[in-house]
């Protein structure tokens, strides 16, 4: 019953490396590095200083302004310093460093179990905000902002995004298999805060086990999930992109430059729903998430729950190390993820996975000239003409590129993936977008 969106590609999924193993229980490292800007919006402001003892799950940096998010200590220990560290999105991110002294209790114990039905929408949103919940699909947009749309925009539909269209990543899929009830409870809270009527749970058709468990949970649920339907989507990248998933499910087109709320819906990732559930029911802030560690260079590709701020090197050592030297280490999926130059980077809230890819997997190819095959136009989900834009950007005709809609590009990379001439089209798109 799903609609089609224009374009898209079918990269080989590589999901079977990790899709069958349960998410490993949480790894608690001896040290964490917590960048102050792990989310979209203004960075958080530290409320601790070097030398302070901190307790896990306590707030160590508070949100500044509306579009911002607070950050919590993910382990108990001592703040060793507050300074720059390499991070997934920048090489100098202001961060809080915490080291544990071995004897602390690192487990979460709930202080009070809350019943969300007794809480108002405002109370729910403020709990979510205080827990530092951000979108866990990758963009890390503060969730409380999405849950507080302006008064003139009414939201009728919530889409729970379990598409997980990026190759290699399977953590969302595993979470849906293992914790479907909790995800539904999270969804229920989202629906209540927005007073939305309909909800859809969207999963690509190559994740049958997740479809099965979510459907079963929906049938057996004793919670009042209003009008929630499960939608099975075609497996096609970028099915999980916000505008594309809205098109696929509701056949609504988000206007260029607009937001999902302009067509009356919001999209939340399944992991975000799970984090909302934890925050509201047990008061647990966002200090953990499930991530996928995979790629042919790892001895043992896994899904694992990790504390935010875990340094990649520690994590890799913990899961058994590398089988061979990787050519690329990527934070996120292979399409939109960011290549890293060091293993000293921490896992942040928006990290959905880390890939350790070999030379064969990354397939470095030499760029040649455009032969005008039009494949990039065929696959661009935003219906742009990447090759035309590429020539505009190359010649620095930025105003023309703008007129041709370059701002609509959300950098999915489908054009560059498909290009037979191996032109780094996405590089040109990014450069052009930065210059308009």
């Amino acid at each position, binding site marked *: 019953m799903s609609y089609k969106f224009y374009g898209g590609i079918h*990269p080989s999924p590589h999901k079977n490396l990790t899709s069958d193993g349960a998410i490993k229980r949480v790894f608690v490292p001896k040290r964490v590095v917590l960048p102050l800007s792990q989310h979209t919006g203004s960075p958080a402001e530290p409320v601790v200083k070097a030398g302070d003892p901190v307790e896990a799950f306590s707030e160590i940096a508070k949100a500044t302004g509306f579009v911002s998010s607070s950050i919590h200590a993910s382990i108990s220990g001592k703040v060793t310093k507050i300074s720059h560290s390499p991070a997934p999105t920048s090489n100098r991110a202001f961060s809080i460093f915490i080291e544990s002294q071995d004897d602390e209790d690192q487990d979460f114990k709930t202080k009070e179990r809350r019943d969300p039905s007794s809480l108002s929408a405002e109370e729910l949103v403020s709990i979510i905000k205080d827990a530092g919940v951000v979108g866990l699909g990758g963009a890390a947009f503060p969730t409380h902002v999405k849950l507080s749309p302006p008064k003139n925009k009414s939201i009728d539909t919530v889409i729970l995004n379990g598409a997980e269209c990026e*190759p290699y990543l399977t953590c969302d899929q595993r979470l849906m298999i293992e914790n479907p009830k909790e995800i539904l409870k999270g969804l229920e809270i989202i629906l209540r805060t927005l007073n939305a009527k309909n909800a859809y749970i969207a999963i690509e058709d190559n994740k049958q086990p997740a479809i099965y468990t979510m459907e079963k949970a929906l049938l057996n649920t004793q919670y009042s999930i209003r009008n929630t339907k499960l939608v099975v989507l075609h497996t096609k990248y970028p099915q999980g992109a916000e*505008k594309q998933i809205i*098109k696929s499910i509701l056949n609504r*087109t*988000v*206007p*260029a430059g*607009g937001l999902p709320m302009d067509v009356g819906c919001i999209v939340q990732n399944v992991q975000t729903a799970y984090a909302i559930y934890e925050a509201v029911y047990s008061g647990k802030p966002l200090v953990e998430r499930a991530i996928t560690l995979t790629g042919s260079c790892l001895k043992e590709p896994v899904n694992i729950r990790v504390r935010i701020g875990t340094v990649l090197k520690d994590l890799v050592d913990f899961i058994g190390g590398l089988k061979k*030297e*990787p*050519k*690329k*280490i*990527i934070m996120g999926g*292979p*399409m*939109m*993820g*960011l*290549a*890293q*130059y*060091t293993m000293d980077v921490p896992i942040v809230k928006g990290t959905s996975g880390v*890939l350790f*890819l070999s030379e064969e997997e*990354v*397939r*470095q*190819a030499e760029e*040649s*000239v*455009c*032969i*005008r*095959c*039009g494949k990039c*136009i*065929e696959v661009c*989900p*935003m*219906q*742009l*003409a990447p*090759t*035309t834009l590429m020539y505009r950007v190359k010649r620095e005709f930025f105003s023309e590129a703008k007129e*041709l*809609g370059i701002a*609509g590009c959300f950098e999915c*990379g*489908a054009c*560059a*993936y498909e*290009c*037979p*001439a*191996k032109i*780094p089209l*996405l590089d040109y798109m*990014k450069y052009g977008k930065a210059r308009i």
Partner: protein
Amino acid sequence: MNNPLIVSVGPHIRAKVSTKRIMWAVNLALIPAGAAGVFIFGVYSLYIIIASVLSAVVTEWVILAFRKKEIVILDGSAILTGLLLAYNLPPGVPLWLPVAGSFFAIAIGKQVFGGLGHNIFNPALAGRAFLMVSWPVYMTTWQNPRWTADAITTATPLALIKNNQLTLLKGTTYIDLLLGNRGGCIGEVCIIALLVGAAYLFWKRYISWHIPLTYIAAVALLSRVFNGPGGIFTGDALLSVLSGGLVLGALFMATDYVTSPLSNKGKVIFGISCGVLTFVIRKFSGYPEGVSYAILIMNAFVPVIDRFTYPKWFGWRKA
């Protein structure tokens, strides 16, 4: 780490398809038609094909070396030009003719514009047009298939249609036309072989239906309506499609990436326009066949078509 990590903008994985792979696939797809041509007209056709390909490759190599560019003969594009030019020649031409044609195709048709990806006109067709104006007699002396008694003929089915000599076509069935049992250019006669090759390209999704279908449909429709002996709607659509170079042109030359529009909408406009022009040339000009000139003329319009068919992007609103 002694083995430094690569840091680059995504996507970090790439599709297997490459320019080279596509070019070789098209070359492969052309083999059945060439083999059929050699079978029909005799081994001399093979020499023409070889001469044409060799000339194209050598020309490309020399010019790339002269331009101090990377020598990329193995990308298959020069071979493709050579093949297509040979397929567009009558089977009895002297061997220096394909050599001259391929030289022109690569040197003037392609490299002068900047090489692969930059040429405005389909190089093979540019080469053919050059031969057509330079040595028209060679280019219009046809042969019957080698098993017919009178080997030399001056009339292809299209010429007969043009001169209202349909009676002379009496013995020729559609089956003959499909198999290539008629006079014509080396690579154009065996329609079945062309379709087999094209089917492979469709299956690999290297070409789409947009140009071939609209092109052939336009010619068929116009021929049916306006090209009959007994007035309107008495034309033989199938005969018009199967004779001449339409199938070869529509499947393999109008679909050339470099010289056809980018968007699907543009491709449809391009295909229909090629069809209309082909019909107009066939019907009203001094030539019986119009495929190559129609495509060449439309090649010149591609930038304009691209400009006016730039896609309306997702969520586009009238400003």
